[in-house]
């Protein structure tokens, strides 16, 4: 019996973790400060695999942090600032208590503060890393900018958030990177493609709502503090890539246009610039003024098979970006101005609104060259002949469909088609709402061959009838596995491509015939399942068209399976 005896909980996972209170004592900070520090530095608690071991035998629920993370925190210079702040508060309170007002002033002048720049640089060493994390920052900043300016959270934070969000929107407008919009009951979801990254963010509605009481405001404020810093730096860099001046300035021509007579009615001088920017109705000034926009010339690479496809894609993209180019819109008073102005400007349209609504309206309702007026009322008194009066959903649906939809469905007083979510990717065999099918048909019809256009139009017309089940069946057959084949056959009138496809189909049939019995058995099973779903989807279609509510639960329960 030589050797040292090993004691329990002295090595291994028990020593790698540390509880929250112990960590706090090690750093000599209060709990609020410790939490703030962890949020700022991006240090999160961990759940160990074997709680009993780490907790030294007990199963009490505790928060654990990795010991190495806490040791890393010890080197942080902000920790010193927190302690200084604590001392400052104590001195201030004493001075107040003794009614030494000069002392109070002096202390206030020397209030300790800290900067987060080095933390941002440490957490996101490259610009692309930061861009990946911007979703969260965007949503938080948009959320905070909608808060009311009571004293509950610092008014400065709210103003800063507002400024940053306005800058971001101006950038998206200038770079034309908006891809998708979705109006939900929670808020408005946007998706933009910035420097190759798909960024999704949520903007709450402007009208006031109650603030829930069970949300920790201090935690949210700390997150916002970090995110505003990050966001500002990202904005700066993005403006640099577009060759725009940062902090953003309105283009000098545009600014002179915007000069209204009664500017003082809208905002104070200090805030009027921000308000003008937020109006999003004018373009931004560039660092190096260019007389004309230079077109980006693609480098000529040696002949590549995918070149054509890529070029085609680019052209499509550019076409999409110019969706509303040349159109002039006027927003009526009851529509959400900021959201619509943002979307319309992103795709190249000219927007204006009533002068009494907000600063920045360039033309009035009486302007004759207006092509579309966006109204949300059941009817409107005075109607001009050469413009369309449409409901705001037309804009959103057009953006999602990447083309200008027919205006007739969105006239005043017409029941709108449902607003579909662009964030849903339907797989083969899943239920596709009939509206989406119509949309796809529209898209196909406008893009390819004239011969097929008539057929497609006929299909559309027949869709409007409630009782045409056969056409529904035709469209539903497209959804089966042979959908691609038929699609190809229908669309391409060119013989070469059709021949290719026919060859492929032949090969496929041969392969199916040559399969072994077992494999064929499996294959049959899969096909059976798919066919069942499409059949159910078809019956669902029928029910939706016939409006039979009683069948809903049956049908839904039947095809809930593929959702799980």
């Amino acid at each position, binding site marked *: 019996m030589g050797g040292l005896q090993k004691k329990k909980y002295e090595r291994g996972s028990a020593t790698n973790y540390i509880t929250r209170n112990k960590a706090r004592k090690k750093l000599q900070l209060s709990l609020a400060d410790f939490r703030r520090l962890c949020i700022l530095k991006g240090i999160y608690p961990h*759940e160990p695999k074997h709680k009993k071991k780490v907790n030294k035998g007990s199963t009490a629920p505790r928060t654990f942090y990795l010991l190495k993370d806490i040791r890393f925190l010890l080197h942080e210079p902000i920790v010193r600032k927190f302690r200084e702040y604590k001392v400052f508060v104590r001195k201030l309170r004493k001075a107040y208590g003794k009614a030494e007002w000069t002392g109070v002033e002096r202390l206030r002048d020397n209030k300790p503060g800290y900067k987060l720049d080095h933390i941002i640089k440490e957490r996101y060493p490259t610009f692309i890393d930061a861009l990946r994390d911007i979703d969260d920052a965007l949503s938080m900043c948009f959320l905070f900018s909608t808060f009311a300016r009571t004293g509950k959270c610092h008014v400065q934070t709210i103003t800063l958030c507002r400024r940053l969000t306005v800058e971001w929107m101006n950038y998206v407008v200038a770079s034309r990177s908006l891809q998708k919009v*979705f109006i939900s009951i929670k808020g408005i979801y946007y998706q933009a493609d910035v420097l190759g990254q798909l960024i999704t963010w949520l903007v709450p509605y402007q009208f006031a709502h109650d603030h829930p009481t069970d949300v920790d405001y201090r935690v949210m404020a700390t997150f916002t503090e970090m995110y505003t810093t990050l966001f500002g730096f990202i904005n*700066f860099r993005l403006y640099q890539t577009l060759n725009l001046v940062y902090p953003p300035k309105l283009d000098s021509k545009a600014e002179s246009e915007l000069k209204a007579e009664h500017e003082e009615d809208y905002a104070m001088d200090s805030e009027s610039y921000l308000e003008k920017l937020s109006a999003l109705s004018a373009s931004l000034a560039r660092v190096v003024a260019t007389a004309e926009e230079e077109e980006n010339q693609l480098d000529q690479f040696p002949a590549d098979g995918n070149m054509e496809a890529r070029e085609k894609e680019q052209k499509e993209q550019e076409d999409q970006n110019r969706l509303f180019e040349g159109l002039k819109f006027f927003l009526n008073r009851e529509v959400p101005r900021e959201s619509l102005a943002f979307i319309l400007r992103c795709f190249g349209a000219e927007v204006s609104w009533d002068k009494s609504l907000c600063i920045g309206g360039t033309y009035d309702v009486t302007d004759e060259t207006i092509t579309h007026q966006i109204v949300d009322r059941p009817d409107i008194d005075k109607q001009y002949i050469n413009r369309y009066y449409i409901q705001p959903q037309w804009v959103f649906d057009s953006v999602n469909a990447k083309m200008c939809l027919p205006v007739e469905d969105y006239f005043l007083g017409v029941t709108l088609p449902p607003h579909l979510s662009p964030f849903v990717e339907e797989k083969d065999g899943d239920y596709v*709402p009939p509206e989406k099918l119509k949309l796809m048909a529209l898209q196909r019809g406008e893009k390819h061959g004239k011969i097929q256009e008539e057929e497609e139009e006929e299909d559309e017309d027949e869709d409007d009838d409630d009782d045409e089940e056969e056409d529904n069946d035709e469209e539903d057959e497209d959804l089966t596995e042979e959908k691609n084949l038929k699609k190809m056959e229908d669309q391409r009138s060119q013989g070469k491509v059709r021949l290719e496809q026919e060859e492929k189909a032949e090969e496929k049939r041969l392969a199916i015939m040559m399969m072994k019995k077992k494999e064929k058995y499996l294959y049959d099973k899969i096909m059976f399942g798919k066919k069942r779903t499409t059949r159910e989807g078809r019956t669902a279609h029928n029910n939706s068209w016939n409006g039979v509510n009683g069948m809903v639960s049956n049908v839904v329960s039947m095809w809930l399976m593929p959702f799980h």
Partner: protein
Amino acid sequence: MAAVKRLKRVAALQPGFISFKSSAESDDLNSGRRKRVNKNKKKNWNKHSDIQDVEEFLDDVRLQERATGGLISEKPDDSLFFVDIGEQKKRVQPEVQERKKGKKSKSRPLRIDLILQHDSLVPPPKDVLAHQQPNAKKLRRIAENAEKLAAMGVLPRRQKRLLNRRPATKTSKAKTAANNFPDRPYYDLWGAEARETADPYYLEQTGKRRVKRPEKLNAKPSILPAVEVIAPGGSYNPDFFSHQVLLLEAHEVEVKREKAELRIERQLAVKREDTATEETVFQEQVEGLVEEEEDEDEEEEEDVSIRGGLQQEKKTEKERKRERADKIKSQQKQAARAFTDKKQQLFQLRSIQATLKRREQRTRERVAQRKANQEAEKSMPRRLGRLKFQAQDLEIQLSDEIPGSLRTLKPEGSVLKDRFKSMQKRNMIEPRERAKFKRRHKVKYVEKRAFKEIT
């Protein structure tokens, strides 16, 4: 003798005391007893001469000189007395009044000044110290030299140093050290590459170089995306089926909750038969009060159980031998059976294979299941802390709440709460609830005296 004299003197001094001798004589006796002093010596002039009356007179004179400015006897009559004629009728002279006023202010001095005038004959003493200056000559000489130099333009050394000193630049303190003011400037954070200013070892040792961030901290705590888009049924104008799907999900959540409530109620349920009726209540109350015959049958049953274990104590030789033989036989039997089993296993190969395959399949299934569980766990929120994660309610609007247009839309749910819960779901913060207000001591209610009288 002295004591007797004293007594007599004291007695004589009492009022109403009639002595034998007359009072005059008693005085003479006393005065006769006085000691004789030699007034011819200068020493005794001061001690024993009485100049009180002269002193009084001189004091009086000095007082008069000090207070009233000279002897009163030498003052003229007008300054001391005035003739009281009576009230004089005031003559109205309007045009002269203004001039009178002016005259009053200029010519005639104020009465207060007159009262406070310095009117004693005794002049104030001269302050000798004011004229005394140490080294007056030297100081005068220095001042004259300094004047001459200043006239020539040469500054004394002190002034030269003051002028040479650098002006104190009032550094505006870094008030902008704060982080969040609205016009905060930003710069290119990722642009300029920091150069090494000095030897890296030196920087490390002196604590000037920042510690590198460990790689593990860059990993995201959860694979869920930051912003999760709501299901298509949550659109403000949803299409029928997606909305139904969302309603079904919410419905299932509600059903689960109801089931949980029902379960609790079921556990607490009591059978109707067990409820107390009047008879059972009466029975309970009466128990033990009424005496009954106790059974004596219980005692007999105890004896039987003790006897059973005591019979077999010793094993005989025979028994032991038999046991050994039995053991050997059973072992042999087992060995033989094992041998035949092994031989027969050859023919059982197929079924053995079948069982093996089944077992393998089971393990494979279990492995797959475990992996699927682990993957699912990655997207679930982890348990960090005392409270469990409570998912928020689905944001959903019922069929009759769906608005027809954007104008009539009422937003559902709070984005703030959604963001908070999303952060908890992604393991960035631990779930927290609002701190309850706990009282240290119980609240006591005391009636005021006035109320006590009423009630």
